[in-house]
């Protein structure tokens, strides 16, 4: 019971330290205009596509609030969590290390794990406050008459929270391991750049590299932005974030010999690697998008689930070929969700595809099932599915009577948004910052 009763003062200390840090207030200050910029641009673009000024909407079915407003508006948080939030998290540990407060804190009647948990809780509370502009944007969207689908909205918010947890894990681990805040910032930035490089290198490739790249923060967030909730992504991101926090707890325990800390870290990383592996083989996923963009029609899904043999797809399209991107999004991602034994081979040798013409196989997509092989160049869903039915000897289901996604055009102006995000929010942050400084005394 000691932990429960002693946690409030510990959390209170971390909260005070967070609100005493300039980095946090600068994050709050920046996040309003960043969100505002994303929101205003998104609403304007959405209005243009929706036929602003009385013109008809260009393609109503393509107008989803998830793509049109939520993803670009909350994209500001991806930027903030990548470039600003790590400094706030690093400071929460580095300041205590550098000022000598850590020597006192280690003697408090709390475990190091409790200390790190309190820091995380304070950071999460601070991040929740930083979400106010995003929530204001959502409320304004509703006030303009915009539509929202709860499941895909909550799924996107979950993705951003997982992103924050991962960032907190990496930053706290770096701060605990590094000598100074500056070194920790370099390590964290290096991690971010490394994941970007991995994303780039793995694009259009299969195998373990592509599997690994699907868990980088950017790639993981992309699933949520598409309305997809993948259990493997949730498990892997939570495991990696926990690993970072646990590493921080291990290395902040400066009373232990470095060798003992290293051994604990190795054991921990082995354990986390096992969880990551177990998590990554989970195929459970839920398409929470309103327009079911990550799924074939229900009838097609029932039919395709009858394919029991392994399906091998060999794609002769380069990573930067837009057809491959269409194929990934429109077909492969859907097939991966319903075919447990799908193997994809990316056969193109270059990134752009510009110099692959000589092989005369460029553009071909081969399907192999039960010893039968067939080639098709199409990247269009219904054609590919039809091809698969033929290959598997399955009768295509009758035309689906599922309701067609209507789309939600909205020709609204972002009225009042500039005032709120560019003027009122910064003013409020600066005022509360000043008040908080005075109240600390």
């Amino acid at each position, binding site marked *: 019971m000691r932990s429960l009763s*002693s946690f409030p*003062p*510990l959390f*209170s*200390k971390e909260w*005070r*330290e967070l609100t*005493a*840090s300039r980095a946090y207030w600068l994050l709050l200050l920046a996040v309003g205009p960043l969100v505002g910029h994303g929101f205003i641009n998104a609403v304007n673009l959405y209005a243009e596509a929706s036929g602003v000024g009385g013109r008809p909407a260009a393609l109503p079915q393509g107008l989803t609030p998830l793509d049109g407003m939520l993803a670009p508006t909350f994209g500001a948080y991806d930027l903030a969590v990548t470039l600003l939030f790590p400094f706030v998290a690093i400071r929460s540990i580095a300041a*205590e290390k550098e*000022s*000598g*407060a850590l*020597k*006192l804190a*280690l*003697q*408090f*009647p709390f475990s190091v794990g409790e200390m790190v948990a309190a820091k995380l809780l304070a950071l999460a509370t601070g991040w929740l406050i930083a979400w106010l502009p995003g929530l204001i944007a959502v409320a304004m969207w509703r006030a303009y008459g915009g539509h929202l689908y709860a499941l895909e909205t909550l799924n996107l918010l979950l993705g951003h929270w997982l992103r924050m947890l991962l960032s907190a894990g990496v930053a706290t681990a770096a701060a605990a391991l590094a000598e100074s805040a500056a070194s920790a910032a370099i390590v964290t930035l290096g991690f971010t750049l490394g994941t970007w490089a991995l994303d780039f290198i793995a694009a259009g490739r299969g195998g373990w590299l592509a599997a690994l790249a699907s868990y980088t923060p950017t790639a993981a967030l992309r699933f949520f932005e598409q309305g997809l909730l993948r259990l493997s992504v949730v498990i892997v991101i939570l495991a990696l974030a926990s690993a970072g926090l646990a590493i921080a707890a291990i290395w902040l325990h*400066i*009373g*232990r*010999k470095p060798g*003992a800390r290293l051994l604990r870290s190795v054991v921990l990383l082995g354990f986390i690697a096992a969880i990551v592996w177990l998590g990554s083989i989970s195929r459970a996923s839920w398409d929470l998008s309103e327009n079911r963009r990550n799924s074939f029609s229900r009838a097609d899904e029932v039919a395709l689930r009858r394919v029991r043999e392994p399906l091998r797809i060999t794609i002769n399209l380069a990573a930067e070929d837009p057809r491959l991107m269409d194929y990934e999004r429109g077909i492969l991602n859907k097939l991966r969700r319903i075919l447990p034994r799908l193997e994809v081979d990316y056969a193109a040798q270059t990134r752009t595809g510009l110099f692959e013409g000589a092989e005369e196989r460029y553009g071909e997509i081969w399907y192999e099932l039960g010893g039968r092989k067939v080639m098709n160049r199409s990247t269009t869903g219904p054609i590919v599915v039809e091809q698969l039915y033929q290959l598997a000897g399955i009768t295509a289901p009758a035309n689906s009577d599922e309701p067609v996604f209507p789309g939600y055009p909205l020709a609204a102006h972002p009225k009042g948004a500039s005032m709120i995000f560019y003027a009122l929010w910064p003013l409020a942050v600066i005022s509360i910052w000043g008040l908080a400084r005075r109240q*600390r*005394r």
Partner: protein
Amino acid sequence: MNLLTVNGLSKQFGARTVLQNVSFSVRQGEVLGLIGPNGAGKTTLFECLAGILPSDGGALRMNEQGLAPTQRKTALFYMPDGVTPWERQSVNWAVGFFERVYAGPIKATELLNTLKLESLRHARIGSLSKGERKRLLLAMGLLTSQPLLMLDEPFDGLDLLQTRDVMALLRSQTGRGRTLMLSIHQLVDAARVCDRLILLSDGRVVGEGTIDELRAQANLSDGGLPEARLEEIFLALT
């Protein structure tokens, strides 16, 4: 009766030996002084005892029971010298925080008055002078509840009057059942406030006991210096 017994404590930083087979005991309710020149290993010894720096060898016993590094914070508290913790917070918050965490017998307001920090309640810790900060660290240390309190250079930065008051305050703690271990640079101060002394030189204990006992250990009692001061004893033992 011994509260704490230290046996064969050693510590190396790379090839440099900082503590070498350090053994001594701390008696219940005493003020024990740890004296030695700069670089003698006083701070390292405190940090090893507190468990915030790993030692390479040796063992601690508290009330005749083994005291593992993970148990140290239940038995002793070490207040370092020269730290400026939570510099953006106020003095009031810092003492209030220690009071809430430890819920010891002394009240924060009482200590603020005694240490003349009352007028600085709302000052930022980072804005305090060296002496003010030292008094705050003392207040924070005295608000802890562990049986043994170790203070690194408790009089450093204090003027004569403040030193005298703090000495009286520290002495009064033993009456409340607290045991104190003080690392003191100024030998005159050490002689005034401590019941017993440990002399540390080059990471080794070169003497332990009251001034009379140390004088005897240094063979100064019969050697023509029966009134030898601590400086002379220290020089004779090192």
